[in-house]
């Protein structure tokens, strides 16, 4: 029907002429918009591919600068208690771009603190280009594979990097002058932790570790000790899970937990489940036999 006159088409389609012309104009505009969007998407895609294909030192791909990685775990549903002063101190030091270490007993809440910091509005504002987070853990971690997570987050294809040194170089180059918070969680040896200290001049580094030697190697004398919670904070944490706990029960549980937030959280979760049916007898039994 491409050579038919509009009036013929209007009649054939069962439309009055005014409606036909109006609909035709709308259809042309919609098709124009569709084509425009396609073209913009295409140009955008080409620009992205182009930026990814540039090379640094003839070997390492550079990243997409528009990416703002945020690799920190999200905030847990319960709030952090008893750490306000410590958090303020850490935030202040991070603002200056220092390397810090959070050191303390297992279960003292080092990782929870780091998560809270990474999700803090002021911290995210200061490190506006995002958060690089890696959990190392015990054993013999595959550092290059772990670096692959950061490479991907920075828009670099991990397969294009063939050694740990190249990966480190690519990550450092990609970070450049970006404002990033770099978090190395649960480090068990200095070498592994330092391998991820790859930020630039506008970054701050934070490591969590139970080992003083790792903390010193990573952060020098900027070590913040994460102690057990005092009784008041421990009670507040437990009562977030089970607000109806009797005072004597709370005291017993505090004694068992030793003020370690992880133990308190696990107990709290367990008791909350037992308390869910709102049966005091079930809760009492659960307190008698805590199996976090």
């Amino acid at each position, binding site marked *: 029907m491409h050579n038919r006159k509009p009036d013929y088409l209007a009649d054939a389609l069962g439309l009055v002429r005014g409606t036909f012309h109006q609909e035709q104009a709308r259809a042309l505009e919609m*098709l124009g918009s*569709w*084509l425009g969007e396609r073209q*913009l998407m295409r*140009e*955008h895609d080409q620009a992205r591919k182009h930026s990814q294909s540039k090379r640094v030192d003839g070997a390492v791909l550079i990243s997409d600068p528009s990416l703002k990685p945020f690799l920190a775990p999200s905030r847990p549903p319960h709030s952090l208690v008893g750490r306000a002063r410590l958090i303020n101190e850490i935030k202040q030091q991070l603002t200056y771009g220092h390397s810090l270490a959070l050191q303390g007993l297992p279960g003292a809440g080092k990782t929870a603190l780091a998560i809270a910091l990474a999700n803090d509005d002021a911290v995210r504002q200061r490190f506006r280009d995002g958060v690089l987070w890696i959990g190392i853990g015990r054993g013999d971690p595959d550092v290059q594979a772990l670096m692959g997570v950061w490479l991907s987050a920075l828009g670099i294809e991990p397969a294009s990097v063939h050694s740990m040194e190249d990966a480190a170089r690519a990550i450092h180059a990609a970070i450049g002058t970006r404002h990033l918070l770099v978090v190395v969680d649960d480090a068990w040896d200095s070498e592994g932790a330092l391998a991820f200290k790859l930020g630039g001049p506008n970054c701050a580094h934070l490591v969590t570790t139970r080992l003083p030697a790792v903390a010193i190697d990573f952060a020098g004398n900027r070590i913040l000790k994460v102690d057990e919670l005092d009784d008041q904070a421990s009670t507040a944490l437990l009562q977030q899970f089970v607000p109806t706990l009797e005072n004597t029960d709370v005291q017993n549980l505090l004694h068992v937990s030793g003020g370690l937030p992880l133990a308190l959280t696990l107990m709290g979760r367990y008791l909350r489940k037992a308390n869910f049916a709102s049966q005091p007898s079930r809760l009492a039994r659960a307190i008698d036999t805590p199996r976090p």
Partner: protein
Amino acid sequence: MHATEPMPQLPPDLFSRVSIRDVLKRFHNAGQLGEHPLAHLHWVDADAAPLERGTALRELLRAGIESLRPDEGELRWGEKR
């Protein structure tokens, strides 16, 4: 595509009603279609021949028209509107 990356701007009249009407008039002639400014937007290689550009643009237009087709049952024919 990354939502945070700014998109490039294109001349708006290239996708105007007049321009689209013009390109549709050439729909059945791939050679003429390939000469239209819209065919020079690298839907195919920059050094492609007009016929090739026209064919690529036609396929694209066809896809666009298809994507704008209303769902079945949306239109009621036979009654003057």
